[in-house]
């Protein structure tokens, strides 16, 4: 799973001490140096992953992109990711609407149960789902992986969407009803446009979670491989390693772009609200 970058904030009054500064830099190096090896070695003109670097090449990228199995695995991952993201965001939206808009008995319990997959070790989830699908005679395939991923990503979608739904005045929806629109049209004319930044951010986040996920894909995939599972299977062949690094570097860049985009959208949504609040009442 991706580590989401966080901003480290020191109390405004404290002066930065040299010691803390060194610690912070050491921490960042520890965190990101291994990740930087990926693009560095993927451009190194040698089949062996070791220093010193031999020279610059893009042949590993050519190799990676012409590996039919790798491309097939990538397509599988994109498919699973896209379907998981759309499904989880849709379910998350319904749940967020229910939690934020209705007086419900047991809303807290329901929330807890839905959020639970975040705290259950994935290996436990993976094994138990294998047992479940076996019991109901559902053959392991991309379908079962997708089901597992939807379950895993719904909590992420919910967290993002509940925050967004809570962020705007409930009387906006009431105003729409009051002005004669049905519940359905109110959703399309008011709720949806206001939640849209949250929906986009949820889609991106859940897609990334699914795309990067290994354990569940490994347990539930059967003979179908997603990209992480394929990459793992290729680690046994040293000659394949550089092209795996190249693919890894590409995914790294794509993931970073998506995370930044999702976060940017989320913040933009939040600051819109803040602005409204400041100028409003």
């Amino acid at each position, binding site marked *: 799973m991706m580590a989401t970058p966080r901003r480290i904030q020191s109390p405004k009054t404290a002066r930065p001490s040299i010691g803390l500064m060194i610690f912070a830099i050491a921490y960042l190096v520890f965190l990101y140096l291994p990740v930087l090896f990926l693009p560095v070695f993927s451009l190194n003109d040698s089949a062996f992953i070791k220093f010193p670097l031999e020279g610059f090449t893009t042949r590993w990228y050519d190799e990676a992109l012409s590996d039919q199995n790798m491309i097939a695995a990538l397509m599988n991952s994109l498919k699973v990711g896209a379907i998981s993201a759309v499904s989880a965001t849709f379910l998350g939206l319904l749940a967020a609407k229910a939690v934020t808009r209705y007086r419900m008995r047991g809303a807290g319990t329901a929330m807890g149960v839905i959020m639970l997959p975040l705290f259950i070790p994935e290996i436990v989830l993976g094994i138990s789902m294998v047992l479940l699908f076996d019991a109901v005679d559902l053959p392991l395939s991309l379908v079962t992986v997708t089901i597992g991923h939807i379950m895993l990503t719904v909590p992420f979608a919910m967290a993002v969407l509940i925050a967004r739904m809570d962020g705007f005045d409930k*009387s906006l929806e*009431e105003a729409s*009803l009051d002005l004669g629109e049905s519940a359905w049209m*109110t959703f399309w004319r008011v709720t949806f446009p206001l939640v849209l930044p949250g929906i986009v951010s949820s889609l991106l986040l859940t897609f990334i979670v699914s795309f990067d996920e290994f354990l569940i894909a490994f347990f539930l995939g059967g003979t179908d491989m997603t990209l992480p599972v394929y990459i793992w299977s290729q680690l046994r062949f040293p000659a394949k390693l550089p092209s795996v690094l190249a693919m890894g570097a590409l995914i790294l860049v794509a993931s970073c772009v998506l995370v930044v985009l999702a976060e940017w959208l989320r913040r933009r949504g939040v600051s819109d609200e803040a602005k409204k609040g400041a100028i409003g*009442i």
Partner: protein
Amino acid sequence: MSKSSPATQDGYLRIEHVTKRFMGVTAVENANISIARGEFFSLLGPSGCGKTTLLRMIAGFEFPTEGAIYMDGQDMSAVPANKRPSNMVFQSYAIFPHLNVHDNIAYGLRRLRLSRREVNRRVEEALAMIHLPGLGKRRADQLSGGQRQRIALARALVNRPKVLLLDEPLGALDKKLRESMQLELRELQRSVGITFVFVTHDQEEALSMSDRIAVMFKGKVLQVASPRALYEAPNCREVADFIGSINFFEATVRGQEGGDVILEAAGLGTVRANLPAEHGFISPGARVIAAIRPEKILLLADGNGQPGQSAVGVIGAHAYLGDRDHLQVALSGRKEPVAVAAQQIERALTARFDSGQKVTLGWDKAAMLVLPG
């Protein structure tokens, strides 16, 4: 001027035996109100008294646990908010942040499938009505509080509702703007002739704007009357206390004499008062409350007090307020001092008020209210 005739059984908006409970808590209890067509009607009460819940039931956002609401003769019990002939101005104004002013005002017109030109004409008309012509292109986040309030009003009125509901619409505005909006709102109501139901906790606001007011307290409608009647003839201690300031005296009924009731009140002695309109609670020996407003108490020259309509006391605290003086007068036989508001005109005639000075208080017997104990 207030319409003194109370709405009849065939009121335009009728609230009949309406009770609302939320998970065992009674928010509104057996409310009965009948509002006439074109009336400016206020629901007044402290926060938590159920006035907003009642308004939301009229709008259709909440449904009564018991009882029914009728608009123009139609039972609204099964009618959802979007099908009711009412529109609402929300406390937060609820201006759609993703739409500009024009689209906000035109929001409710979409269903009518009007031509674009007709929509534009109505929106322009509405903007002119609220004195904001040409503001249609303005984004929602570029509006001031006062503008938002007016646009919320225009957005509701453009649909030509039978009833306009207003939930503390002036509460978020500063004092000066609020006062000018009170006048403007009243003028607007008169010119459009739409029935207004106005929720507020501000008694001055309710008194100055309304044809009639329902005072609510702890979920109950205590009194429905014109502003004048509420102030001059409250029907219970809570209403008298909530509207304006007033002195209460524990009292016992001694008997009746002509049209008057004779009381024995703590600190005042024997007191004569007019028999209240509803006087079922008055019988010899009954515990009642005598009440009089501070400005209805006059300061008299010594010995000028009439029996049953005067008392002698000693001035305690004294506050000079420019147009009037506020005095606290201690009476023997009563712990709390009596509040007296002396107007400028009367004050000029009297000598200066000093603490410890002995004074005679007098009042008209019509000013002494008798309330159920």
